[in-house]
């Protein structure tokens, strides 16, 4: 470790705790880019882990997640709560580029000192969230945000990962998705803590809500669970239904705090964070060990993939 590095990371962490937005922005970059100082920051921030409610906003593209995020920010700000937002959009696997377009709908809150938003590319992570999302969350928690909204686009399987990051998952659909709602995959049904039918202003909400409710009832076992995911119709465009959604999110947070479920979820989150951290480190270290000679030997058939991989994996240590 470089000597000056530890001191400057500590200063940065102090700035984050003191509420300095520039420090927070820089800390987030170090965490997201997995810079050498990221480890120091995670260790400095982790003691605040679990303080904030992490709310996942997931659902198919274009269902109004970002617009709704803007509404939820206003709702929480009205209650005097500080809100951090992490919005993840897919990175192109071909170019590494990404269009991070969620800020467009939240930008009206940009100058509010109680709001901080960061857009992230998924950067090669299957599952719709970037692998460094946990570090980013730690930074926002250390900065004192009590509600952290994580927006991810759900396309098929991806919704599942948000459930390993968030305390409360709000799954956003629209009446316009029609049959897709009924055909919604079992996995999606399981991860939602609340199902939001957005764009209620466009009509068809009653049918969408009742379709969703029957789909949820079908998947339900005989015993009553302490939390049954409610279905709520909202319009992010007009604000209709947003206070109801806000209350449901609060009820779920209380449910988590008042039962063993909150602790169980946080334990699962820590496990996921550890698994990501370890697999990234080991993978990189292992790949660094591939030598030109290994490849030469394989080209000449003097070695084979299994033998090379075994040699490489044997001494890998953190």
């Amino acid at each position, binding site marked *: 470790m470089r000597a000056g590095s530890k001191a400057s990371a500590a200063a940065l962490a102090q700035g984050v705790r003191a509420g300095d*937005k*520039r420090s927070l*922005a*820089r800390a*987030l*970059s170090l965490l997201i*880019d997995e810079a050498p100082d990221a480890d120091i920051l995670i260790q400095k921030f982790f003691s605040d882990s679990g303080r904030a409610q992490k709310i996942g906003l997931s659902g198919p593209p274009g269902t109004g997640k970002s617009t709704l995020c803007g509404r939820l920010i206003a709702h929480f700000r009205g209650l005097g709560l500080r809100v951090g937002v992490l919005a993840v959009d897919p*990175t*192109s696997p071909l*170019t*590494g*580029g*990404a*269009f*991070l*377009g969620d*800020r*467009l709908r939240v*930008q009206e809150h*940009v*100058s509010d000192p109680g709001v*901080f*938003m*960061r*857009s992230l*590319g998924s*950067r090669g992570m299957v599952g719709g969230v970037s692998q460094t999302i946990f570090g980013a969350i730690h930074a926002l928690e250390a900065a004192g945000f009590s509600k952290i909204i994580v927006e991810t686009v759900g396309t098929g399987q991806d919704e599942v990962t948000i459930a390993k990051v968030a305390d409360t998952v709000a799954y956003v659909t629209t009446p316009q998705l029609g049959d897709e709602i009924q055909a919604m995959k079992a996995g999606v049904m399981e991860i939602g803590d609340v199902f939001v039918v957005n764009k209620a202003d466009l009509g068809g909400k009653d049918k969408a809500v009742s379709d969703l409710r029957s789909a949820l009832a079908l998947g339900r076992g005989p015993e009553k669970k302490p939390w049954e995911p409610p279905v709520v119709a909202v319009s992010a465009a007009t604000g209709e239904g947003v206070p109801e959604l806000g209350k449901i999110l609060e009820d779920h947070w209380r449910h988590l705090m008042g039962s063993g479920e909150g602790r169980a979820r946080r334990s699962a989150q820590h496990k996921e964070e550890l698994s990501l951290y370890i697999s990234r480190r080991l993978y*990189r270290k292992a*790949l*660094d060990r*591939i030598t030109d000679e290994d490849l030469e030997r394989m080209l000449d058939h003097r070695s084979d993939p299994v033998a090379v991989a075994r040699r490489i994996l044997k001494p890998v240590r953190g």
Partner: protein
Amino acid sequence: MVTEKKTYRVLIAKPGLDGHDRGAKVIVRALRDAGFEVIYTGIRQTPEMIAEAALQEDVDAVGLSLLSGAHMTLFPQVAGLLKKKGMKGVLLFGGGIIPDEDVPALKKKGVHQVFGPGTPLSSIVGYLQENLPRARGK
């Protein structure tokens, strides 16, 4: 050996009152396709909103697109606010309908590069690819 190259982040913003953002969106797409992470703020942004978004997103460059002719006041305001917020390393560039004779004054006021109408997208991409590693040598 795995070498992961740094992904540069660029904010594209439209200050001022004109409501057309087709041009800005074309640039957004070109930069994304060239491997940048591009954040778009939308239209009718005040210099304060642009600078604050640049800060929170910790971008490496800010591109301003303007057709309404207020560039001589708005561009330097963004430059000043970026500096005030401690974002000295950020590359600020602008495009739109900007007469040649305004360019030297804009450059003096902290706008690093100005692209006139009809600039090929490849020159904007090339400009960022060349200048970003230098501007953010960290």
